[in-house]
């Protein structure tokens, strides 16, 4: 399954990049810089979505004690963390020419930063517990707590921000050009497929690692040898 997702991700990336750089016209207000959005928006949305999926898998693993879903959760975490980082990075690079600042203490930005910390906490907790079953269960609990807290943090930061400074910057250009939309969707799909491919690849490694003593892996090894 992995090659299929990987190939389609690659195709989508090429198509998406083509549309975003050659087809989509220059934005009137933002100039060329808006093209960063083509990578920024998919990365941000996916980083949040992956967290939800991860917390969901973790909860499944915690409640029904299924090993595969816990492994899926731990396979998703690094990808999510990287996408969160990417979202912050591209956001900063977009913010500098647009807002004149690398960083603004806006609710969205702060939540994304916290999201990155939650991912890092999940990974660090999982990595520092030797017993894999305890690691799965402890980090699952953390993921669930985190998913409860993200909305609280989002609203509290938003509230704090609106008290501090009147006008927070909103995304401009509500009515997007068709080509822009197409570019965005294609890139979104590409990142999506990429995330699936790379997590599947990772979960395969994790399964091999964890099940190395069971029968079927050694049988697999016989075949490969």
């Amino acid at each position, binding site marked *: 399954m992995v090659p299929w997702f990987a190939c389609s991700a690659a195709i989508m990336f090429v198509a998406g990049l083509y549309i975003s750089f050659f087809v989509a016209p220059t934005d009137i207000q933002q100039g060329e810089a808006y093209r960063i959005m083509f990578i920024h928006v998919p990365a941000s949305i996916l980083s949040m979505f992956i967290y939800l999926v991860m917390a969901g898998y973790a909860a499944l693993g915690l409640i029904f004690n299924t090993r595969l879903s816990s492994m899926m959760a731990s396979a998703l975490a690094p990808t999510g963390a990287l996408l969160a980082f990417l979202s912050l990075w591209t956001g900063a690079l977009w913010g500098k020419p647009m807002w004149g600042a690398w960083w603004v203490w806006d609710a969205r930005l702060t939540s994304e930063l916290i999201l990155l910390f939650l991912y890092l906490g999940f990974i660090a907790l999982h990595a520092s*517990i030797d017993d894999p079953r305890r690691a799965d269960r402890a980090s699952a609990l953390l993921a669930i707590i985190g998913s409860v*807290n993200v909305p609280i943090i989002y609203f509290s930061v938003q509230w704090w921000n609106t008290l501090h400074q009147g006008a927070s910057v909103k995304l401009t250009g509500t009515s997007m050009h068709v080509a822009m939309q197409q570019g965005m969707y294609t890139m979104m799909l590409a990142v999506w497929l990429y995330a699936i491919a790379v997590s599947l690849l990772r979960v395969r490694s994790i399964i091999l690692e964890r099940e190395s003593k069971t029968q079927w892996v050694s049988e697999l090894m016989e075949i490969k040898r």
Partner: protein
Amino acid sequence: MNKLSLIGLLSLVIRRDLVLAMRRRADVLTTLIFFIIVVSLFPLGVGPEMDMLRKMAPGVIWVAALLASMLSLGRMFSADHLDGTLEQMMLVPQSLSVLVLAKILAHWMVSGLPLVIMAPVLGLQFDMTTQAIGVLIVALLLGTPILSMVGAVGAALTLGLRGGGALVSLLVLPLCIPVLIFGAGAAEAVVSGTSVSSHLSLLGALLVMALIFTPWVTALALRISME
């Protein structure tokens, strides 16, 4: 042989933890002194202009309180874990959540309450108005128990791990952001003349929510960690 009631268990554990803390007074004092030192370092770092200090005082005190409470989190369960008392605690015939709540309350009395008591003095150092100090105290009273509760979850999750201290900060600090925002915001609202009560009521709501969920989650985390 009488059975111990729920309240009996609660007070037993609180009394036990307080006695233990009193016999290890140095630990309690370390947290408090750390708090005072961190707050006192800020004017040295940013300069002694009174206007600026007055403005940043609530934030500084809150951040210092947050850091100080992180400092004492490691001790919450680890000593009991090392000598086996925690195993016995998991076998209480009453709900583990109640026991955890007792431990959290004891932890707050030992590490949170001294900070609240110390805060007005530090507020005066930063030339805060009496009214602002009053609000700061109320906010700290509402907020520091939440820090203990959220911290308990982190402490339970990282129980017995190497490098647990740094890890617990990584896990807990991001979750404490709302407390920090509303806590510091309340005192700042006094300065800027906006509504204080909304901040405090939000803080109160957070406290109630934490009171309901965190003992239960901490108990669950302890069960996971003890396995």
